[in-house]
């Protein structure tokens, strides 16, 4: 397997060396460096937003300024973020297009190198490509449009379809949920707004591609997905950035709403360069009989803090988090899941696997909440960590609150090290030490990699091999 995959045509090219390029900057709109009311007003002005949105942003700015970095429980690294040196909004000013030919040349080149257009032709129902702050390209198969599916960026969503999006915008994740959701609420730009009408099942995935091109930049996309009763969709996002000298911030807010009997699957392959702070808030609300699945893979970034959540609001709703984290040299993947069981007979499943390489650190933080008054709820959590080197680190912080009647919670955790006998066995069959290690790690995450769509799983295996190179000796 280790061998058989190297020449597989990589359709996403999320490999960091491939993503490590950028074009010269020529932005028509630049909010400058640092954050204050004027910056927020500037962003809102460029977007010609309704006054309620500006109010929302300004309120969020106040909340952000008043909240402390959560370094009392999270990594102290957060204090290295200097908001006065970050650029909060950069845009070319070119209109978003539906045709690749009209996309500005350097932006087009970027996405072509990343393989986005081929992928769209090959297997996607729709694509949105965001370059720094704004969406550069967005397209969807026409039959979906006829079915009433909406797939636009956040600016267009709030402008054109306020009756659909305003109702849920900022409701799943309120402004003051945490410091970074407040920050995003103040300066958000880009991200996808999706609505799938009652009973419509979108067969092929919709995809967004996020690209940071500029140094010292903060990307704050905002995504809101609403699946109406009985609707189904899968959404995928990929992220890359070139490696810069200074830190870059990515702080997204993603809200999902699955109405009665709807199903949403949200797939992420995060491969930011290793000086990106990736601080993301993701949460979904599942109404009666609805299902929300987060399938999340974190390979890149210097520090990631992300704990996808499902609020199980309706009876018999189901939430799931499938999560893979690879923490290589100097990286800290602080990931996990939250399941809030607020109705009877709700079920949740969390499967988390992490691999720590070199001095990399992987942390799992979990929260399973079953308050008094709910009954017949079930949670199952499996949390496995693999350590490659003797200085690798892993931690698990599970929190379980289980009151109420007839609820059941199950938590299994394991930590293992790649055994020398296993490596010797494989080497006896002719594999080099790093091939053996890579195969072993691929095997460890294999059952989860299979949960990703084909195109992603092939790419993931290849990325894991790249990460394992040089991890031995």
């Amino acid at each position, binding site marked *: 397997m280790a061998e058989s995959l190297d*020449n597989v045509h990589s359709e996403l090219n999320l490999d960091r060396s491939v993503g490590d390029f950028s074009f010269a900057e020529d932005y028509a709109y630049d909010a400058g460096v640092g954050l204050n009311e004027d910056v927020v007003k500037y962003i809102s002005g460029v977007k010609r937003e309704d006054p309620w949105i500006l109010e929302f942003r300004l309120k969020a700015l106040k909340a952000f300024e008043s909240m402390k970095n959560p370094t009392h429980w999270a990594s102290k690294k957060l204090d290295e973020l200097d908001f006065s040196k970050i650029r909060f909004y950069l845009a070319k000013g070119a209109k978003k297009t539906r045709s690749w030919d009209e996309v500005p040349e350097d932006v087009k080149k970027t996405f072509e190198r990343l393989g986005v257009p081929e992928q769209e032709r090959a297997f996607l129902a729709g694509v949105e490509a965001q370059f720094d702050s704004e969406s550069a390209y967005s397209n969807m198969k026409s039959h979906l449009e006829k079915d009433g599916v909406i797939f636009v960026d956040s600016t267009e969503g709030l402008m054109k379809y306020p009756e659909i999006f305003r109702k849920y915008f900022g409701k799943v994740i309120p402004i003051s949920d945490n410091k970074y959701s407040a920050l995003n609420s103040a300066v958000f730009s880009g991200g996808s707004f999706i609505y799938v009408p009652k009973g419509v099942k979108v067969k092929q995935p919709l995809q967004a591609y996020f690209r940071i091109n500029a140094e010292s930049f903060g990307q704050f996309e905002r995504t809101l997905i609403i699946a109406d009763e009985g609707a189904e969709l899968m959404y995928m996002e990929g992220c890359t950035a070139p490696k810069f000298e200074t830190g870059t911030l990515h702080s997204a807010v993603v809200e999902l709403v699955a109405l009665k009997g709807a199903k949403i699957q949200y797939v992420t392959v995060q491969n930011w360069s290793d000086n990106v702070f990736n601080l993301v808030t993701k949460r979904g609300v599942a109404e009666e009989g609805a299902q929300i699945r987060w399938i999340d893979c974190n390979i890149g970034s210097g520090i990631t803090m992300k704990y996808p959540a499902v609020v199980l609001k309706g009876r018999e709703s189901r939430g799931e988090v499938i999560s893979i984290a690879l923490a290589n040299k100097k990286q800290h993947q602080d990931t996990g899941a939250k399941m809030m069981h607020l109705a009877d007979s709700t079920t949740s499943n969390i499967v988390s696997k992490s691999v720590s390489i070199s001095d990399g650190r992987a942390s799992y933080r979990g929260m399973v909440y079953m308050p008094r008054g709910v009954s017949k709820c079930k949670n199952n959590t499996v949390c496995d960590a693999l350590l490659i080197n003797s200085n690798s680190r892993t931690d698990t912080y599970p929190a379980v609150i289980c009151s109420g009647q007839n609820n059941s919670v199950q938590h299994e955790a394991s930590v293992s090290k790649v055994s020398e006998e*296993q490596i*010797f*066995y494989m080497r*006896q069959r*002719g*594999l*080099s030490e790093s091939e053996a290690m890579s195969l072993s790690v691929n*095997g*460890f995450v294999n059952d989860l990699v299979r949960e990703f769509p084909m195109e992603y799983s092939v790419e993931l295996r290849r990325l894991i091999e790249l990460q394992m190179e040089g991890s031995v000796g």
Partner: protein
Amino acid sequence: MRGLEIENLTVRVAGRNVVEGLNLKVPAGEVHAIMGPNGTGKSSLSKAIAGHPDYSIAGGRVLLDGEDIVGLAPDAISKKGFFLAFQYPVSIPGVSIANFIRACLNARMPEGEKINPVEYYKELYAKMDELKMDRSFTTRSVNDGFSGGEKKRCDILQMLMLNPKFAILDETDSGLDIDALRIVADGVNSARSPERGMLLITHYHRLLEYVKPDMVHVMSGGRIVKSGGAELAVELEKTGYDFLKD
């Protein structure tokens, strides 16, 4: 000489000699057996030859088709055509047998080349038929949750696919019921060829009822103390290893 020659070999583990001045020749085309009581260094011998980092070779030579393999990395020794069927095969969760063997074969290809997947599966299935293995077997993770018999079969299948010049089978018969023992024996017999030498390490006579060795050696105290024909195994079965105490 074609085959395996071990000359005056001394193996140290944790500061202690576990094999001391051992000499043995197994020419290509022959099957030899090493027997002996527990703790006489039989398994240490096989691991040392395979290049296990914990078994250091303090003296002597190991020649595979005339070439000294002492000091080479385990994967380099494997690629020279040496195979070891393990006493305790290790599991590799999440990696299917089919993918594992394919990766091992690809590792033998020149840089940038791969084996043809269609040809590969054709050969894999042919070998599995030979070993009377169900097709679904190779979709399972290597040795993961396998019974003792399944593990040994998995190793035998790898041996047939990797087609080594020389193979050592370390206690491949231990822990097998009689049906599984037959399957392993059939595998060993079908791997017999004028091109290939094999060395069976075994505690009991049982396997040798199904695989007739050309020679039997008795190991004790880290060296070979007695050698003879197949009849030696029968004799040992009757008299045991008590003669070693004299």
